[in-house]
């Protein structure tokens, strides 16, 4: 066995982008899920829930593969802890999407007509936060290619700099819906209210996950 051969491990960045893409696939199912819930199409929800669950599992597998291929003796261009946290956080986004799908799946919860527009707006904001993050994280390979510096790193950092504000906007929309739900409390049965809250919680966890993942991406680029 040659020393040069022993020196090289498997680069984590290509599978890392693959993980991002898998999570992105999950995120892209949020809007169809919401649409199906609004239309009361439970067959569709069932189908989408299966797809989310499958994709989430695939993302998990990629995550485990990355961790298995990186024993401690390997030396990386990013902080080891940041990479682990990044993977964990990004994976939690897919978990939360699955939670959202499960909430819609286990109970036929009708969306009250007065809430439809607000839910749509909220989901749109959630998906937008994720899209911003995922598009940036999918640049990981190019970032590694440029040694995590220069124009490429600057542009990725700039593109995720607005994540905090976007997440805050999503929070505000969530509070708005919560308030409206209680204004309609006489028309809604308590179980429906509980499930609305569960949906909101899952969705807001998606944006939280995206914000945290973005922060870790930034830390990986600057390395400390």
């Amino acid at each position: 066995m040659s020393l040069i051969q022993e020196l090289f491990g498997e680069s984590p960045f290509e599978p890392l982008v693959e993980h991002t893409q898998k999570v992105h696939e999950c995120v892209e199912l949020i809007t169809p899920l919401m649409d199906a819930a609004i239309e009361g199409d439970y067959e569709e929800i069932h189908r989408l829930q299966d797809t989310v669950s499958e994709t989430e599992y695939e993302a998990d597998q990629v995550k485990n593969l990355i961790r298995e291929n990186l024993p401690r003796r390997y030396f990386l261009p990013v902080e080891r802890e940041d990479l682990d946290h990044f993977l964990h956080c990004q994976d939690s986004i897919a978990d939360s999407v699955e939670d959202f799908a499960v909430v819609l799946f286990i109970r036929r919860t009708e969306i009250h007509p007065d809430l439809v527009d607000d839910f749509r707006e909220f989901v749109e904001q959630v998906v937008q936060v994720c899209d911003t993050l995922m598009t940036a994280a999918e640049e990981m390979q190019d970032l590694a290619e440029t040694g995590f510096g220069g124009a490429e790193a600057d542009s990725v950092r700039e593109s995720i700099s607005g994540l905090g504000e976007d997440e805050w906007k999503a929070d505000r929309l969530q509070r708005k819906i919560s308030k409206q739900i209680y204004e309609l409390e006489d028309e809604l049965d308590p179980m429906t209210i509980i499930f609305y809250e569960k949906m909101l919680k899952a969705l807001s966890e998606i944006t939280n996950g995206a914000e945290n993942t973005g922060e870790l991406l930034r830390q990986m680029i600057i390395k400390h």
Partner: protein
Amino acid sequence: MSILFVVITAAFGLYMAWNIGANDVANSMADAVGSRSISLKGAIIGAGICEFAGAVLVGSHVTNTVRKGIVSPEALGGNPEAFALGMACALLAAALWLNCASWVGMPVSTTHSIVGAVVGFGVISAGIGAVDWTKMGQIVASWFISPVVGGVMAYLFFLIIARLILGRRKPAKAAPRIAPFIAFFATMVVCLATVYKGLKHIISGGASWLTGDVAIGISLAVSIIVALVAHILIKRYLEGQEERAMHDQLRAVEKCFAPMVVVTSCSVAFAHGSNDVANAIGPLAAVVDVAGTGFQTVHTEVTVPFWVLTLGGFGIFLGLATFGHRVMMTVGRKITQISPSRGVAADVAATTTVLVCSRLKLPVSTTHTLVGAILGVGLARGLGALNRQVVQNIFGSWLLTVPAAAFLSVLLYSLGSFIFLA
């Protein structure tokens, strides 16, 4: 008797050179093969030619160190036969140790084997004082220093490539401006190491016009031409690419580095030939020298015969052709994460370090220097995942190899002197 002895030693030397060609050359070309910049066949042909050229043109310096620098012939001046026998035994011991080590899958350096073996025979034949410990100290120091210097240089080269080319807003615009400087530097190093003393071997009449100044002039001229050609070719290739998306520009720029990494890997092979051929033919040169006087005296001031250098180069080529391609294939398959730009940075650093060591007559390990250089690129955040355990393996390998080869050499010499000299 003397002819037979020379032939037998030459056979050992050829065998050792074959070993070097079979196992080590693959490492020299690793960056070009791993980054898929050259086909396996091309790599073998390129490496073969460059190893041979390095051995023949620059190989004599380190050869002289192995021949007479470590164990001073004066210490055995009264007994030229013992000196010749010892050198032959050292050569065989080093080759045997190499075989044992690769048999159990442990990567050991030919350089450390031969140095250990020569020291072993020196100590047993004429006592501790027979070894030039100052020289030995320099050699051991160079084993520490060469990977570190290779690493620091590769770190800087990669930072230059990353900051001034890949990190720019328009990498495709920056590449034709910056890359020629790297080409200039690499060519200058190879030329300076080769032209002055190297060409004198092969130009008949000793080439008295070839002074130091002329050599520098020639090197400068060649390097400027190479840099200009690189500039024109890269510019032509990247024409109109600078408006494309960042991702596409980076791909295009990497493609520009592909022909460069082929050239720089060949120069690593050249540097490897210049340094490591001595491991095979240093002892042979000593034996040829002593045998030429009918085992009467040991010369200290003769040049290494041209045919001996050629034999070493040929042996390396043979090893590469018969066995090296397999090693090269497995190495190339494992190190796919290296890209041409990284390869260029590591190669130029390793070539420079090894060639300077060759000219300083220091036997160093090309593979260890290249490992240091690749780690340097890694420290500059240029590579995905590098195994830091290899650093321990390097120290472990020579801490074991030097005594082991020395011990084997002592054993063989004791046996040989019992049979032949008693």
